[in-house]
C-alpha cells in the first residue's frame, strides 16, 4: 500500500532552535493518526511543513505521492487543513466563507452550492450559516474550520487540535465525524486529549522535543504501562515517554 502522507527525515530549525529533528511518518488510507506530544514538542511545526505553510529545513513531505515543496499547488489540492485555533475572517458569514473556500478550490455554479451545503450539513452549521465568524462560539468556529477542510473531499486531512474548545457533546459529534471520514482517507490530528486517541485514532505517534518517541497502535501504547497502573494508563505512558519524572521515563 502506498502512503497518502509521508515525511522523510523532516527537520525544522528556527534560528538556533532545532524544533523538529528528523521526523519520519507514514499514514496510509484508512488510518487516523493521533499526533501527541507536550506543548512545544513540534506537532504544529511538523503539520505546517506537511501542509506547505512552513518550509522544511531538511527532509521532505509527500501528500498523495506529491512532494509538497516541489509541487505545492498540486499537493494543496489533495489535502484539507484545519490550522491551529481554526482561524477565519471575522467579518465573513459562515456560508460566505465556505463559498470563498469552494471558489478557491475551483468549484463554480451548482457544484459550488452543493459543496457548501454538504459541508454545512456535515458539521451541523445550519443554525449559524448567516452569522459572521466573530459572533460564533468557539465550538462553531472549530466546526466551520473543519467544514472548510473537508469541503473538497480530500484524500488527506490534517487537523491541528480539532476538538479543542468543544463541549462534550460537540466532541462526541466531531469524533464520530472523524471516524467516519477516516475510513477511506488518511487523517492526521494533533491532540492533548489521550481519551481522543482511544476514541478515534487507529495509530498514535508521540513526539517529544522534535523526536518521535512512540509510533504504534493505541493498544500497543496501553501495553507499555506497567500492570499495576489501573486508571489513565495512556496518561502514564505519555508522561513516561515525554518527561523524566516518571520511573522508567527518559529525558
Amino acid at each position, binding site marked *: 500500500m502506498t502512503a497518502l502522507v509521508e515525511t522523510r527525515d523532516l527537520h525544522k530549525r*528556527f534560528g538556533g532552535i532545532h524544533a523538529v529533528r528528523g521526523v519520519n511518518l507514514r499514514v496510509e488510507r484508512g488510518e487516523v493518526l493521533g499526533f501527541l506530544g507536550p506543548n512545544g514538542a513540534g506537532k504544529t511545526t511538523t503539520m*505546517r511543513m506537511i*501542509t*506547505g*505553510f*512552513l*518550509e522544511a529545513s531538511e527532509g521532505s513531505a509527500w501528500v498523495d505521492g506529491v512532494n509538497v515543496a516541489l509541487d505545492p*499547488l*498540486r499537493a*494543496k*489540492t489533495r489535502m484539507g*487543513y484545519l*490550522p*491551529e*485555533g481554526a*482561524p*477565519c*475572517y*471575522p*467579518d*465573513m458569514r459562515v456560508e460566505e466563507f465556505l463559498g*470563498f*473556500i469552494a*471558489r*478557491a*478550490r*475551483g468549484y463554480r455554479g451548482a457544484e459550488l452550492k452543493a459543496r457548501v451545503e454538504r459541508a454545512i450539513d456535515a458539521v451541523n452549521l445550519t443554525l449559524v450559516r448567516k452569522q*459572521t465568524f466573530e459572533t460564533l462560539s468557539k465550538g462553531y468556529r472549530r466546526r466551520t474550520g473543519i467544514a*472548510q477542510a473537508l469541503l473538497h473531499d480530500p484524500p488527506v486531512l490534517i487537523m491541528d487540535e480539532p476538538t479543542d474548545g468543544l463541549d462534550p457533546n460537540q466532541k462526541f459529534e466531531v469524533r464520530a465525524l472523524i471516524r467516519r471520514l477516516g475510513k477511506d482517507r488518511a487523517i492526521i490530528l494533533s491532540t492533548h486529549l489521550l481519551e481522543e486517541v482511544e476514541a478515534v485514532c487507529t495509530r498514535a505517534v508521540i513526539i517529544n522535543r522534535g523526536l518521535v518517541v512512540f509510533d504504534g497502535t493505541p493498544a500497543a501504547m496501553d501495553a507499555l504501562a506497567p500492570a499495576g497502573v489501573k486508571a489513565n494508563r495512556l496518561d502514564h505512558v505519555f508522561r513516561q515517554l515525554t518527561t523524566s519524572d516518571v520511573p522508567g521515563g527518559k529525558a
Partner: protein
Amino acid sequence: MIHRTLIIARREFAAYFGTPLAAVFLVIFLFLSGLFTFNIGGLYDRGQADLRPFFQYHPWLFLFLVPAVSMRLWAEERRTGTIELITTLPFRLGELVVGKFLAAWGFTLVALALTAPTWLTVIWLGEPDNGVILSGYVGSALMAGAFLAVGACISAFSKSQVIAFVSCVVACFLLLLTGFPAVQDFFSGWAPRAVVEAFASMSALIHFEALSRGVVDLRDLLYFASVIVAFLFMNALVIDWKKAL
C-alpha cells in the same frame, strides 16, 4: 489565473466594506479633499475652471490615507492566523499578492470616483479642459497604486498594522521627497547633474505633477507601473521568505 486572482480580490474588496474602515476612510478622504480644494486651495477664488487645487494636495492626502488602506492587507492575516489558511489553499503566491493589491486599489478608486462632484462643479461653473482633469485623475490613481504596492509589501513584514502604517507613511514620504525642492537643492549644490536628475526622476511627486498638469508622458506612466510591479514582486518575496523562517 486571472479568475483565481479575482477570487482573492473580491474577498478582500468585500472585507473593506465589512468593517467601519470603508465608511471612515471614505468620509475622511472626501472631507479632507474638499477642505484642501475649496478652503485651502481656494478653488472658487482663483476664477479658473480647473482642478489644480484639487490635485495639488493629493500626494499629501494619500501619504496618510493610502497606508491606512494597505496596512491590513497582510498584517491582519498574520495576526488572526488566516495567513495559514490562505497560503495552504491552492493559490499561487502571485495570485494572492496581485489579488490583494487589486482589491485595495479598487477601494481607493471608489474613493477617487466619489470626488466626481468636484469635477461637475467646475464643469457647471465654467469650461474646464476635461482632458487635463482626466489626466489628473489618472495620475492620482497611479500614485495611489504605487503607495498601495509599497504599503502591501511593508504589511507583509509584520503582524502589527500600526508598524505597517507608520513604516509605509515614511516609505511613501521618501518616494515623494526625492523630488522635493529642499532635497533637490541639497544635491544640485555639489552632485553631478546626472545624479540630480536621476534622483528627480525617481520622485513620485514630479511624475504626478506632470500628469496633473495634463502632460501625459509615457515615462510617467511607466514610472508608476514599475514602482507597482517592483513592490508587488518584493511583496511576494517577503511572503515566500517568511515561509522558510
